[in-house]
């Protein structure tokens, strides 16, 4: 009823392999995009930008990155925080060394540098599999954080080892530094989100993505049918790290403005992004968005309800929040191990048949 397909005929292969094959989806997508670009920047304020929208957009990029590696290529990684740190420190060094170059180029380059680091740490994946690999990626997490904390060159020899993002502009609008308006910060992140989602979607449905999925489903079998595991795994690590690096660069430069590596890019960040991917749905770009939205919104919401509405002590609220998040994770895994993306799919199925179910 709500979901009409009647009259939606496909006459070419091109039509059939679209990202949104149903017309209603396509319209919805353009409406959301239009609202995001044309409406939100005019109504956004500091609180919404800092507490909700910026973290959501940035984590969505990180989740897309990790989803490529874990969801599509089947390589579980707990090193996301470390790779985000690479992006952040790369963009910091680039911003301070080449102030005349556009920050957009810096962010893309930071992604590229992260991709190289990701490939280097991905090499062991050719030998190590499963949980052993998951734990091995922790080596990247801890080593990279230590490196940025320890080697003074990375933080330009400042007394405390903190890095601060200087003010940079895009088209005359400040996007980093204290003077940046919430709308400008939001738009630059949104631009990178759209870019990332578009690239990721097209990669994953093309040949590269199919190779990744073959490796994920069974790497030996994939090798036999002619997928080069070295090639597939390294592209997965590289491209995944590229997005994660962009997310780290944005997190530091646009969102936080200052960062201390041990705190901002610790192991908790790795878990957070992994949660987003799992709760959102492995192997789904939409799932990356859903997971990021869920885990960014939920704590803010719980906090506001428990402390703001019920007036509980903040510490108690924080513990209850931990319990609720933990319980919800378990609940989701039990009810729908394939995440929010699958729930959305099921909901669409139901809507398509409503009001005449089987």
């Amino acid at each position, binding site marked *: 009823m709500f979901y009409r397909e009647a009259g939606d005929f496909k006459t070419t292969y091109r039509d059939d392999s679209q990202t949104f094959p149903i017309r209603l989806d396509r319209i919805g997508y353009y409406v959301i995009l239009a609202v995001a670009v044309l409406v939100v920047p005019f109504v956004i304020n*500091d*609180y*919404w*930008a*800092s*507490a*909700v929208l910026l*973290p959501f957009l940035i984590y969505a990029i990180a989740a897309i990155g990790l989803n490529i590696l874990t969801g599509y290529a089947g390589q579980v990684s707990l090193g996301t925080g470390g790779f985000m740190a690479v992006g952040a420190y790369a963009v910091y060094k680039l911003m*301070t060394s080449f102030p005349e170059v556009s920050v957009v180029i810096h962010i893309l380059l930071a992604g590229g540098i992260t991709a190289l680091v990701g490939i280097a740490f991905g090499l062991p994946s050719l030998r190590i599999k499963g949980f052993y690999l998951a734990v091995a990626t922790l080596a990247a997490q801890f080593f990279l954080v*230590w490196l940025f*904390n*320890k080697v003074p060159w990375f933080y330009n020899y*400042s*007394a*405390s*080892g*903190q890095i*601060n993002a*200087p*003010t940079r502009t895009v088209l005359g609008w400040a996007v980093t*530094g*204290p*003077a940046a308006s919430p709308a400008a910060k939001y738009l630059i992140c949104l631009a990178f989100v759209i870019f990332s989602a578009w690239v990721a979607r097209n990669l994953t449905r093309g040949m590269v993505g199919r190779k990744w999925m073959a490796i994920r489903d069974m790497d030996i079998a994939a090798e036999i049918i002619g997928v080069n595991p070295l090639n597939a795994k390294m592209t997965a690590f590289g491209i995944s790290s590229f997005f994660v690096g962009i997310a780290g660069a944005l997190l530091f430069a646009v969102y*936080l*403005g*200052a*960062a*201390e590596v*041990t*705190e*901002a890019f610790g192991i908790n960040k790795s878990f957070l992004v992994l949660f987003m991917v799992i709760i959102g749905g492995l192997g789904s770009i939409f799932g990356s968005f859903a997971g990021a939205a869920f885990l960014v*919104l939920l704590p*803010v*919401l719980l*906090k*506001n*309800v428990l*402390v*703001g*509405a019920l007036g509980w*002590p*903040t*510490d108690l*609220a*924080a*513990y209850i929040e*931990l319990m609720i998040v933990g319980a919800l994770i378990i609940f989701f895994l039990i009810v729908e191990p394939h995440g929010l993306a699958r729930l959305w799919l099921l*909901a669409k199925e139901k809507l398509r048949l409503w009001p005449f179910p089987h």
Partner: protein
Amino acid sequence: MKTKLAALAAAGMMVAAPALADLVVPNLSYRTGAYGANGTQYADGFNDYFTLLNERDGGIGGERIQVPECETAYNTEKGVECYEATKAEGLVYNPLSTGITYQLIPKVGVDKKVLYTPGYGRTSAKNGKVFEWVFNAPANYWDGASVAVKHLLDVNGGSLEGKKIALVYHNSAYGKEPIRTLQDLAEKHGFTLIELPVDAPGQEQKSQWLQIRRDKPDHVIMYGWGVMNQAAIQEAANINFPMENFIGIWWSGSDIDVLPIGAKADGYKSLAFHGVGTDYPLYEDMQKYVIEPGKASQGGQHVGSVLYSRGMYASLVIAEAIAKAQELAGTSKINGEQLREGFEALEITPERLAELGLPDFGPEIEMTCANHGGSGMARVQQWDANAKKWNLITEFTEPDQDILNPLIAEDSEAYAKEAGITPRDCN
């Protein structure tokens, strides 16, 4: 489901902002997470002093003070969220985290809010010409390092020539701060500095203390926080390191750091910039107006502890600054800019402290347009494990300004250059 969630979210956001006409001093506290045990005591002291002012005097200058609490868990992102959620009304911020402070320094300038970071944060914020909105009186990390070395000089008959001093530090922005200062001091006084970083959280420090046992430094200075403090004092006790040669910064000198170690922690020293315990006249009022009516934060279970006293001291300074600002502005409803003026004209004399019921509690503070850090004076306290109390063993000592001032000038200029700030003229 999505619209429902969004509606709920919107409803949740609505209730967050306290729509009040009173003066608002948000308490960005952390009662959970790795440093929750420390943060919770500080937050109690911070709340209770304002509660006392509200209950006893009806607030400051007739304006009641609202202290909405927001949990940061020592996490910078949550800290930013808390700041944004409260900044519509908030006047002054005290996040008790060096990381969150760095985050807020650029923001407070734009939003015209005061950032008050007593004893932590960015040291060079003492330079009010560059950091207009940040205050860190009465003392900062570098003051602490210098006062500690001065105390060691006193203990060693005025010379540290040829001595070895080890610095055990939290391997973070906070712990790294004093290194430059100590290096300069080492050069000046001729001692050797051994740097021993400890990664957070720091419950496993065997390597560091084996090294101390091997190198036999004459003194150990510690910049720790959270579990790292207890673990370090425990390991020092384990290797029979003489406790009187072990001195911590004020963040490594609370009751919870030494109590778990028991009798072996006897003699451990730490710096302090305020008094401890309940032997002050103020606590009679506190008892009467706050604790007995059951209005104390968390039932008053931490009253008089070191960190409670520090939280109380922070709110005392803020309260005095608010009063000063009201006086200067001629109105009781001040805004952030007026409060900043109040901070810059703030003067807390020993007489004033006695008047407040806290004689000899803290050092004299006098802030100006150029000096946002006060005198930097601190004193040394020593733990008595039998009586389970801290004893103040020195008077307030001034740090070595000859060493510190050039460093502060250098660091704040670097920041001004990086952030594109022209230092203002203070004459």
